[in-house]
């Protein structure tokens, strides 16, 4: 269970990026965060694994507070939280399987990690996961040779090998064509249920959020506007979120 309580953040004085954000998410749930550009979606997501240091509040993952962790503890927390990026953020020159295995670094001693010495089990698991995301034949190919959709699936495999409790996705499909986008969203949805993970995705497409998410959180100017089951999302709420009617998007 992930609980966020009264999270606050401002990058500059007197300009709050997040104001009193609270929500909680059960395992196995797919959550979409929507809201206008600059609302604070990325800031929330990056606070959840402390890539951004927020100012105050609580972030409890199974009742342990990430915010008060020291450096070594934070490393242990982070390895339970996968992250997927709009630009995939892979090491393009390395092979697909090497990139997947990077997800294990948080579990390894510094030296083993530096030299990239992975166990047989880790390598086998990487292959199983690549099979799962449909990239088994690409294991030894360089990532630079893959399409965007394939790269994003490598990113998903890299986060899965972390054995995560949470996967954070910052606009995972913003650089993808509609078909690849669908594949990636479907995959995330299925994996969330199969592994009983919490999956949180920042999305700009409301129809996709409605289609795949169980729960939708709306953020506007750093404040939480709504947090409700995807099925309940109404035109009126959306109009409030974006300051204008968004009828077409809902269909």
């Amino acid at each position, binding site marked *: 269970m992930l609980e966020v309580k009264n999270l606050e953040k401002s990058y500059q004085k007197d300009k709050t990026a997040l104001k009193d954000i609270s929500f909680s998410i059960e395992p196995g749930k797919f959550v979409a965060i929507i809201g206008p550009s600059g609302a604070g979606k990325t800031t929330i997501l990056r606070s959840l694994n402390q890539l951004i240091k927020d100012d105050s509040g609580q972030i409890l993952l199974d009742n342990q507070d990430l915010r008060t962790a020291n450096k070594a503890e934070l490393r242990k927390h982070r390895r339970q939280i996968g992250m997927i990026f709009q630009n995939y953020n892979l*090491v393009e020159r390395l092979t697909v399987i090497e990139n997947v295995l*990077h997800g294990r670094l948080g579990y390894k001693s510094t030296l083993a990690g530096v030299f990239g010495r992975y166990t047989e089990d880790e390598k086998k698991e990487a292959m199983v996961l690549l099979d799962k995301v449909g990239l088994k034949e690409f294991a030894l190919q360089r990532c630079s040779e893959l399409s965007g959709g394939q790269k994003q699936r490598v990113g998903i495999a890299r986060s899965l090998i972390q054995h995560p409790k949470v996967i954070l996705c910052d606009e995972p499909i913003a650089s993808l064509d509609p078909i690849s986008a669908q594949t990636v969203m479907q995959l995330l949805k299925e994996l969330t249920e199969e592994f009983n993970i919490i999956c949180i995705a920042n999305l700009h497409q409301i129809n996709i959020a409605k289609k795949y998410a169980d729960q939708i959180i709306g953020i506007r100017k750093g404040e939480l506007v709504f947090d409700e089951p995807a099925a309940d999302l109404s035109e009126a709420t959306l109009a409030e979120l974006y300051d204008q009617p968004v009828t077409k998007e809902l269909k």
Partner: protein
Amino acid sequence: MTGSIKYLSQKHWRQTGVIALVGAIYLICSWILQYNNLAGITAVPKAFAWLGTNFMPTADSMSHVPQIWTKLMQTVLLAIASTVVAAVIAIFVALLGSKVTGFNWVVQTATRGIASFFRNIPLVAWAMILLFSFKQSDFTGFLALLLMSVGYLIRAFMEIIEDEASETTLALKATGASYFQIIFQAVLPQILPSLISWVLYMIENNVRDATLVGILTGTGIGFIFDLYYKSFRFDAAGMTVLAIILVVIILEVLSNQIRKVIL
């Protein structure tokens, strides 16, 4: 619509203005220096004619080839050695100083300052300064080239790290990887091609510069050129220049080939 047209015509006038300004500066400068433009231009063909007759290598100059060759290789090796050592130092410093992998803003600012200091002292000045301490030796040339290359490479490497490795660094940080794991598993593999490309460029550059430094430090191909020149053996000096040009071209072709393979 009219706004953008107005903007474009203004831009046009600005460009004309800049060109006129450059022309004016040139004229003023040559007036201050009492430089006679016409005489300057007419002197060019004469100078080339003189070069052609005097510096043309003759059959005799072939006897100098073995000596030129040894000195030239010395110079090339000096350039390669100084660049490689500079690259090793620069990568460590750049990792400490870049915004992505750097320590804190104090170290980052200091690194930028140091790099800019080494870079902005001209090579000849470095050589002259070092001559006091190390006399005329290969080591002086090595050190002069090293210091300047370090300055350039730190700056270049920092920019490469910031441009090419920030996204992957973020991704591995998020997995819980430690600092050194991120450096070796993400940053270095990611930036390697650009790194090598810069080192190759620096080697080409340093071979040319090593020639100049050699004149000052009395070593390598620069020394032998100076020697021939001052003893009026212009044909041998011409031969030396020819050899330098040849080696520089070969190096450039070679490094372009290597670039093609690694990029």
